[in-house]
């Protein structure tokens, strides 16, 4: 009898070998879509100083400083600056000034200083330095007084 029980038990165990567990399984899918996004945060505006020959008013000159903007993006966007159209100059300045806005970027996107539209293909956070230079030609000079200009930095 003892042998019979052992034989039956062994037979059942052998039968169960290779059988899968009866608990059911299922897959739950998760989908998500992120469209291109861009955030511009102006950290600081810029300061322009005049050159010794009084023909350049620029954030590049000694004592001047670039504006700083933080860019956060998923990528797939582009960065550009608009031509400067909005300026305030002293009444004594009656001669023409050529304004040239430029930008450069460090961080997730390394961009050498440029004034043209630049693609930001990769995602990440960068710090953009925005510069502005005003120049006068010939014998024209910048005058004493307050100058102000607005640079539009666009992410699209």
């Amino acid at each position: 009898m003892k042998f019979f029980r052992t034989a039956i038990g062994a037979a059942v165990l052998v039968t169960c070998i290779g059988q899968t567990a009866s608990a059911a399984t299922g897959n739950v899918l998760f989908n998500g879509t992120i469209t291109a996004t861009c955030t511009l945060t102006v950290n600081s505006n810029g300061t322009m100083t005049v050159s010794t020959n009084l023909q350049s008013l620029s954030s590049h000159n000694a004592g001047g400083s670039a504006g700083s903007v933080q860019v956060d993006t998923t990528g797939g966007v582009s960065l550009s600056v608009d031509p400067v159209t909005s300026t305030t100059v002293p009444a004594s300045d009656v001669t023409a000034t050529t304004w040239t806005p430029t930008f450069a970027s460090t961080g997730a996107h390394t961009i050498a200083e440029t004034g043209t539209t630049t693609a930001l293909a990769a995602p990440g956070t960068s710090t953009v330095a925005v510069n502005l230079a005003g120049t006068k030609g010939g014998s024209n000079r910048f005058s004493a007084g307050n100058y102000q200009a607005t640079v539009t930095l666009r992410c699209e």
Partner: protein
Amino acid sequence: MTYVRILAAALAVALVPIAASGQSMTPMRGEVRSFTDAFAVRVFPGNPYDQRIRVEIHVYDQNFQPVDARITPNAFLLAGQASRPVLVVVPFDGATERKVRICTESIPFPSEQTQIRAQICGKFFGHRRF
């Protein structure tokens, strides 16, 4: 058992969609089909700063010429880290399709020599169906 509950709660929190606190405008791309003589887009400008700012919405064509669109509202004060919906209705002006840029512009901080105006533009394509 308590451990399992804590784990389940943590997983649930991790799966909650995380709102992008610094979003300046979303969406930035879109394609709309309309059966009328105009198409509508709803955008969500956001304020990434901690303080309240003034925001303006403008609509331009592909050459950055202003488009006579109905924007509701077109200028408003936005609280820090907040966003709000803006409805933009763009007329087809007789065309069967129209590409426009909808731009969110922040007003620069005053009293600085070189002001920076941040502008986020989305590109939207409207198709007219008859």
